[in-house]
């Protein structure tokens, strides 16, 4: 990368990414403790332990080291807390999957390579699009839009129906990719048309039709296809991401209001059409109506969490096998069962940190495309997380979405890593900026440069005083 300057040499970068190193080591230590807990529970239940049982942990450690070293070697200046958060969440997911017996098939298990592959995707993405190069992606507007539609159509034509939704062969879900391509397409479109879309009717609360219709048409087709596929969760995730990008790209809250109204209407319509959705709604409102049928999964998940109580019995001690599809959609209830309410709070706090980084990236002071892309990706992650956690805890009806970084599922995991790779790239800043960060406010500045916020606050009142002097 920019090895020319002494400031970006390996030693300086090593020093600069101290925060990341410290946090990654912390994550590793935490996960190692978790592994010991699970292995202990396994051994206590009579399973013979072998050296291969440590393989997932070793791979995780190698992956973390790989991520950190390549970022340092490349002189990457992007966010450090973001990588650590992703590392913690995926490590937590690894523990949960390991606990569910995901890797007991031996070293040949495909799932073993998933998290390392995810880290690879993230690192490659971050480095490839760092230094503002992510803006190349804006040129691919029609590629992203077209790819998304084609994916859904192909899935509809070739997929097979299972539990009311459509899956591709081998039960992977290629539509997960939409969670990245749609925010890309949206950000690209809004970067071009944002100005036009912000020009509403001077008196009436009406958006500009001419600029809006391509977006509306695209979303109508997309939502229609997803409705055919009965993927209500994906519709919600992409729809909300679209609205947030639209509103933040134009500064018009009106889009959000109209969109939410339209979404509510559409939701009510779909619920009357699909009995599948209606049944889920009934099971949500009163799971005790049919406790051993429709309400079984949610009630088993909830009783698992009740059994876990405040701090649970520890990883490996619960009985998540009583909750159907626990490894995929209901992994959160397993965490609630084995680590209790506090474990859930810790998990949610890490999600909040991740999302707060995304929101910070969507703030001012960055190229429009980057801000919009960050807003889109963050919304996707936030809505997906909320839909999953809300569904499992019976706060909202079940939608069958996965929990990012935690749930079992290759496509979902890799997409979440890809999204965080893009977020990292955006955090690296625009091209043409001086290699040396401006004083006192570098993201990845060396520890000596790190100044608490009050320094900046002090600077603000000084300026007007200086101005009045002149």
């Amino acid at each position, binding site marked *: 990368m920019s090895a020319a300057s002494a400031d970006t040499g390996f030693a300086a970068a090593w020093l600069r990414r101290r925060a990341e190193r410290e946090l990654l080591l912390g994550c590793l230590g935490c996960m190692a403790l978790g592994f010991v807990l699970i292995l202990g529970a396994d051994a206590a239940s009579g399973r013979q332990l072998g050296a291969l049982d440590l393989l997932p942990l070793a791979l995780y450690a190698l992956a973390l080291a790989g991520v950190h070293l390549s970022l340092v070697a490349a002189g990457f200046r992007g966010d450090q807390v973001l990588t650590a958060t992703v590392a913690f969440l995926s490590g937590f997911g690894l523990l949960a999957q390991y606990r569910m017996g995901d890797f007991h098939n031996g070293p040949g298990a495909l799932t073993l390579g998933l998290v390392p592959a995810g880290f690879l995707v993230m690192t490659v993405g971050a480095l490839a699009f760092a230094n503002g190069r992510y803006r190349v992606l804006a040129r691919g507007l029609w590629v992203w839009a077209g790819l998304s539609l084609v994916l859904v159509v192909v899935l509809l034509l070739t997929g097979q129906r299972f539990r009311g939704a459509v899956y591709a062969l081998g039960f992977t879900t290629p539509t997960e990719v939409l969670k990245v391509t749609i925010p890309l397409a949206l950000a690209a479109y809004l970067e071009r048309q944002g100005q036009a879309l912000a020009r509403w009717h001077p008196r009436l609360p009406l958006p500009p039709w001419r600029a809006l219709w391509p977006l509306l048409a695209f979303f109508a087709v997309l939502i229609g296809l997803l409705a055919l596929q009965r993927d209500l969760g994906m519709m919600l995730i992409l729809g909300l991401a679209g609205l947030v990008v639209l509103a933040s790209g134009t500064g018009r809250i009106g889009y959000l209001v109209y969109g939410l109204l339209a979404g509510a209407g559409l939701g009510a319509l779909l619920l009357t059409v699909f009995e599948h959705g209606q049944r889920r709604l009934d099971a949500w409102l009163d799971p005790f109506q049919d406790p051993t049928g429709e309400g079984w999964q949610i009630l088993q998940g909830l009783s698992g969490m009740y*059994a876990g109580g405040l701090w649970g019995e520890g990883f490996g001690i619960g009985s998540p096998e009583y909750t159907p599809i626990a490894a995929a959609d209901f992994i959160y209830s397993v965490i609630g069962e084995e680590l209790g309410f506090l474990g*859930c709070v810790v998990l949610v706090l890490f999600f909040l940190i991740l999302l707060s980084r995304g929101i910070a990236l969507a703030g*001012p002071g960055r190229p429009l495309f980057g801000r919009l892309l960050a807003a889109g990706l963050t919304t996707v992650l936030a809505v997906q997380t909320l839909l999953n956690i809300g569904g499992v805890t019976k706060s909202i009806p079940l939608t069958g979405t996965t929990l990012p970084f935690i749930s079992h599922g290759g496509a979902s995991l890799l997409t979440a890593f890809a999204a965080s790779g893009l977020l990292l790239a955006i955090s690296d800043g625009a091209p043409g900026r001086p290699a040396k960060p401006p004083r006192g406010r570098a993201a990845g500045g060396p520890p000596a440069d790190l100044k608490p916020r009050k320094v900046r606050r002090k600077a603000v009142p000084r300026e007007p005083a200086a101005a009045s002097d002149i």
Partner: protein
Amino acid sequence: MTAVDPLHLFGSLVGSAAWPALRLVLHLAFFLAACVVLWRAWAWLRLTEPRSAVGAGGWFPWPLLVLAAAFLAVLGYQASWQLTGLFRPRFVAFMQSHDRREFNPAHRILRGRILDRRGRVLAQSREIEGRVRRVYPFGPAFAHTVGYSDPRFGAIGAEAAANAQLNGATPQTLASWGELGRQLLTKTKQPRGQDLTLTLDSDLQLLALQQLGERRGAVVLLRPQDGAVLVLATSPAFDPNRLGPELFRGPAPGTPLLNRATQGLYPPGSVFKIVMAAQAIEAGFSGTLHCPAGGFTTSRRYPPIRDHDYYSAQKAGRAWAGFGNLDLTTAFAESSNVFFAQLGVRYGRDAFARTGERFAFDRQVRLYPGTDRYGSLSTGRLPRLAASDQYGLAQASIGQGRVLASPTHLATIAAAVANRGLAMRPRLLVQEPAAPLGQYMTAPTAARLAGMMRKVVTQGTGRGINDAGLAIAGKTGTAENPRGAAHSWFIGFAPAADPKLAVAVLVEHGGFGSSVAAPIARDLLVKALELGAGP
């Protein structure tokens, strides 16, 4: 692998006695490590900002606030299940019957005891080999009223109706709230529920069952003034200590699961004449009706409705002249079918339907809080008669035909007569306040009817129990039914001048009410008043 294989070492450590403590330490260390990472991440978060976020000072991250609020809401709702799930009775019941996790606290809740009005234990929880079991010291005697609570078969009766209280979820004093909070925080292994007191009297209940013996039937004893039920006996019953799937497999012989007292529907026979007499009194009936030995019918195509005296005379080979002209009081005391059949036809089916409604027929009345069918009382069924069905009306007027009633409902009718026409809702929980069920008749009607019922015992069909010691008022019944010998009925109250208790006794296929049901009622009333069961 060498001898100092760390995995092997680990394996032996897990096998050792120190492992549980070590596991706890590891568990805490995991949380501690996670919190340290969280804390460090937070610290770095404050120190570092994503690069090039220049001029972000004026930008307030309200989306983050919205998100945090959403997550907080979800966590709060989650806590309402995960931490305070005890407050959701249906959830606890689900876990107790469907959750197989050994460590689920719902399995270890030491449910409160169920007591009778004298404090005798009808149900309690005992810990046997680490699992809490429900024990019913009286076995089948209270099976239907107290019910059962079983992980496999669910809960019925008071166990189901007061589930939340028994599990300790509805603390009533500040101290018990504090106790619940302590249980929550310390994650106690044995949450303790609260006791429940029933209005039942175990002495009287056992006496009633002893009197019923092997016969099928039901006995209900309640206080007219407040509806408190002292006896709710039904036979045969099942043993709640030994539930098995065979009990629930189809209609078992004798149907021991059926609560005959509250859900059993029987033709009431002559005791229904109380209802018809009330109707006649309120319609202003005075004078007499002709009741010949040849009986009464509405059409020649149907056999005449005759009196018992006709049949007993026929059996003895004698001729019977018939009652001749009868007034209401005498007809009631002699339980004349011919009289009441004519009376019903005279006032018509609309009046009959109105009376039935007033006497709360065709209803489900709850006995405990909650709405399941085990906790409610079927009052009975009255036929919807076609205008042309005069014979059906005549049959219904003497409590035959398609008229059905449950023993408990007939007890509330006797209680209404004793309580100046006002029927109180039967209740089983001491904590529940008394509530009216309906004004079955006016106070003057009730007073007149009470006199007529007293006369049944002093001069009429109930002479056999005319005990000098206790003035009982009542009505006997002998209900024909298609499945064999007639059902034997007695409903009444005592003492006649100042009623304290009302009773209903049914013996399936028992024969004459005067000789089978009435003595049971008498013994029970005598014993109850001896024990001071009145209000």
